[in-house]
């Protein structure tokens, strides 16, 4: 892992020295164990503050549109983060030529106990980013575990009543802090539907139906755009298993429309395009 860190620092230093980029967005040391925090480097001599380890959980691409007025940005991004960056480029939130993506062959993140991060990294099959300017660790053997048991198939094999009870229990944990939305790079709307007051679509109370509507509609807004980075799941202070909803939508989008968000710059998001022969059997 150490050479990853060194290479990231060297790349960042070089980019800043040559004035190729105005700022490097990366991971810095945190005071908490097994955590890192986002840092923003503008001077070449500060590049040594960048760290890299297998606890770099944040998806830093949420900062891109907020900081783009600084000029060209360099960003340290995991392959899943790159997928969201690619979607952001497609949606014209950032410009490709105003971006230097520093990515790497990803071995997967670890949690506090040193096991592969559940539920995202444990089922991830992407180790090489779909887009990059600097790729660290190219061609090197990376240790990667086989994706563990699929949460989705366990859940899908249950009866509708059992599934509803599980979802109900998950939703009742939610305190509606909207941390999932705030951590999501694809949730960049200036005004979110949950905060609309004319009409008020979603009540402020803790009613199950309101919470469920928030999560379903947010997931549908991200449908075909979600890069499966898991930032929403990790941001949740209550441990709501949002992956239950997200991975179902991602799976459907893949099965019905053969689309994975952020993998191909030429392919538009699944729900902003169509085929004449799309799945039609469910319509009378």
């Amino acid at each position, binding site marked *: 892992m150490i050479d990853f860190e060194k290479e990231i620092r060297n790349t960042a230093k070089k980019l800043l020295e040559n004035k190729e980029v105005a700022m490097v967005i990366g991971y810095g040391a945190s005071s908490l164990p097994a955590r890192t925090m986002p840092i923003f480097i503008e001077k070449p001599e500060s590049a040594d503050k960048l760290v890299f380890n297998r606890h770099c959980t944040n998806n830093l691409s949420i900062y891109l549109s907020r900081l783009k007025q600084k000029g060209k940005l360099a960003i340290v991004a995991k392959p899943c983060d790159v997928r969201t960056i690619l979607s952001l480029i497609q949606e014209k939130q950032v410009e490709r030529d105003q971006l230097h993506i520093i990515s790497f062959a990803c071995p997967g993140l670890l949690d506090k106990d040193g096991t592969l991060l559940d539920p995202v990294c444990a089922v991830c099959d992407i180790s090489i980013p779909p887009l990059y300017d600097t790729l660290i660790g190219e061609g090197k053997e990376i240790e990667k575990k086989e994706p563990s048991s699929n949460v989705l198939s366990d859940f899908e094999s249950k009866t509708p009543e059992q599934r509803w009870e599980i979802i109900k229990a998950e939703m009742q944990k939610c305190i509606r802090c909207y941390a999932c939305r705030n951590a999501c790079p694809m949730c960049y709307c200036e005004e979110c539907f949950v905060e609309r007051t004319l009409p008020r679509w979603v009540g402020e109370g803790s009613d199950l139906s309101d919470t469920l509507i928030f999560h379903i509609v947010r997931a549908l807004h991200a449908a075909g755009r979600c890069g499966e980075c898991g930032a929403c799941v990790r941001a949740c202070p209550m441990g709501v298993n949002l992956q239950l909803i997200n991975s179902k939508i991602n799976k459907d989008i893949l099965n019905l429309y053969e689309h994975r968000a952020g993998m191909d710059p030429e392919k538009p998001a699944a729900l902003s395009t*169509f085929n*004449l022969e799309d799945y039609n059997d469910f*319509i009378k």
Partner: protein
Amino acid sequence: MKLGKEGNMVNQEQNQQKEEFEPKIVAFLCNWCSYAGADLAGIGRYQYPPNIRVIRVPCSGRVDPLYILKALQNGADGVLVSGCHPGDCHYLEGNYFARRKFAVLKNLLEYLGLEEGRVQFSWVSAAEGERFSQVIKEVTDSVKKLGPAKKMIKSLDIPEDILNLLTREDEKTGLASSMEHTMQDNKGKK
């Protein structure tokens, strides 16, 4: 026909309740095809059950999944979205986008455990008056079989801990009656 011998009461009442359940179905109809199809059903005197509440929308593509969920939350037993047949959209491609959206939504709702058939979709053209009545019959029948919707409905019970905060009896009754005022329609559904 509520009268009957004591012994039969329970059974009869159960039967009656089953028979008497008339679902409320919110139907989003596109202005150019299905709404005109409903019109034609009227002109052609084709009978269909009076359970649908029609909301006219410019296009099936205009129907946000949020509208469907809101309808369910506010007490609809079923939701029907109907638009032009593929290729007939007044806006050329609105219903194609709608189709993708609805496929994902429908799969997700059933996956979460909502009954299959609460949310339905159909294509009905402006020339299909008879078909419109047929679709409404089918949708009404299937929603009737599912019974009243209970899962997505917003609960209007006052939480006990809030009631306990109120010390005076008149406050409690005041709150209860003001809540009642807003929930008239949903009351039976709790």
